[in-house]
């Protein structure tokens, strides 16, 4: 990866993180941990990889993304706003009455959201349907899904994986945000789906294991994904709460908003990181 691009992406991811924290703080609720963990994945997809047009969010042949772990909506909204789908000032209206920014992604009202999600396990099926539609109707767009490592405890995920594997949906790439934490504890403590890669392989998917907070590895994995004739699962090891010291690897920040003091701390940490990059 070009050093200048990498630097630019890291700056963008930092801004995305600031948007996440601002949104969740304003809402006084939401899910910062699993939003911060996927900042690099979503930033790379929307700023580099996907064939999209923020000025034409319904473009017929656009690539699609389904945020199957819909509670990471603050990350998706921040990426979409920073990418120009809507004004970044909307981010602080997250979860408020009258705002388009619902607690979980709403495709009917939010420009750039390709599927309404939030009930875990369901988004991946919709992504499979989109990929099937593209293949059937001879369209060449790609479909991306982002799943949580807790989410894949839902049986529907494996129904979808089975279908996609059997149908050889090579136009589908699913990221699993493997941050190792879910609401009730670590995934081992709760009900681990590990080994995640072996399970997807058993369903006839190609798998790639990467550091999901590293742009170079995300890029490399997506390039590899384009060369295989199977659906691809990218098991992305990430740090939950990445970028905010007290949220990193802390299970209690799955679904809690920072108070004013902790908000200031988070923002000053992110601003300092940004200043260092710029």
């Amino acid at each position, binding site marked *: 990866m070009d050093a200048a691009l990498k630097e630019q992406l890291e700056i963008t991811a930092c801004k995305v993180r600031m948007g996440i924290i601002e949104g969740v703080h304003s809402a006084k609720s939401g899910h910062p941990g699993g939003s911060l963990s996927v900042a690099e994945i979503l930033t790379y997809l929307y700023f580099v990889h996907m064939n999209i047009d923020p000025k034409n969010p319904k473009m*017929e042949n656009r690539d*699609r993304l*389904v945020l199957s772990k819909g509670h990471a909506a603050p990350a998706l909204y921040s990426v979409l706003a920073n990418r120009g789908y809507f004004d970044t000032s909307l981010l602080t209206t997250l979860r408020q009455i009258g705002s388009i920014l619902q607690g979980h992604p*709403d*495709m*009917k009202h939010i420009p750039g959201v*390709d*599927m*309404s999600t*939030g*009930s875990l396990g*369901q*988004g*991946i*099926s*919709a*992504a*499979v*349907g*989109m*990929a*099937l*539609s*593209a293949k*059937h*109707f001879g*369209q060449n767009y790609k479909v991306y899904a982002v799943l949580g490592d807790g989410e894949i405890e839902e*049986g*529907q995920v494996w*129904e*979808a994986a*089975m*279908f996609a594997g059997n*149908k050889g949906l090579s136009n589908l790439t699913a990221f699993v945000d493997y941050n190792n934490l879910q609401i009730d504890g670590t995934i081992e403590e709760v009900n681990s789906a590990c080994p995640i890669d072996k399970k997807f392989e058993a369903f006839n998917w190609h798998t790639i294991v990467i550091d999901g907070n590293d742009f170079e590895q995300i890029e490399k994995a997506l390039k590899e994904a384009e060369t295989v004739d199977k659906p691809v699962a990218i098991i992305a090891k990430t740090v939950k709460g990445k970028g905010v010291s007290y949220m990193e690897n802390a299970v209690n920040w799955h679904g809690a908003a920072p108070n004013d003091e902790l908000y200031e701390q988070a923002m000053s940490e992110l601003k300092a990181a940004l200043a260092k990059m710029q």
Partner: protein
Amino acid sequence: MSEVKKVATRVGFGNALVKLGEKRDDFLVLDADLAAATQTGMFKKAFPERFYDCGIAESNMMGIAAGIAATGKKVICSSFAMFAAGRAFEQVRNSIGYPHLNVIIGATHAGISVGEDGATHQCCEDIALMRTIPGMTIINPADETEAMKAVEAALEIDGPVYMRFGRLAVPVIFGDDYKFEVGKGVELKDGSDVTIIATGLMVNEALEAYELLKEEGINARIINMHTIKPLDKDIVIKAAKETGAIVTAEEHSVIGGLGSAVSEVLCEEYPVPVVKLGVYDVFGHSGPAPKLLDEFGLRAVNIVEKAKKAIAMKK
């Protein structure tokens, strides 16, 4: 008198898919390993490249249908009512209903007339479940003719559609000239003493009840309520005003189905006695479908009894 032609509404569904498939290639059909039973198998045979079997995974099938619809394409997915509305309820609500996607759910084997398979497969709760989803259209055809016309009409509806079909062969009561309009109840017989509002296979029973009541000097109005949501409120209120008593008849639980929908309208708009005929909060059981319909009181004679009760309740 010659024997009445009997065809299951699920066969009308299958025939309609094939007929539509000959005219247009812009929709896909999905099933969950029940194509031979739901009759999507007819479409599968005619257009194998446009048919996808999702296997025994109804929840995923609903999600796949939602994804196809989200790309702007039309899709019809099918399973038994129990699994389409029951097992996959939350997928229908969240992945299809909430984003108001153009997915047609062809749910067959509804009601106790499933017969021998018994209670686990006799879904009498599907209308109730689907009715609670905002923006869902619910169509319950009475015969093969109506089933075919309804499927064609459903493809033009904006938003999700739940279509309810039966396993049992039932009399074909409508000719090719029958006019079907989504959301418009059909007055099959005019009458002034009581109105029987029926849906699905109970429409034919209601027509038989009309004759039985006539013999006793009771003049019943018969309405075929093929669309349960959105309900044709006008025809219901008009019937209440003009006949003063209502009987609803459905092969579904009396909790949450057509009877509830009619009652909800009338108790707010024009209260008159409403007597509900349906499955009274019990599970079904195995047996031949016609005998079950007798046993569960889903026959013309039962409608007659309810009609008399409703008339007696008039002020």
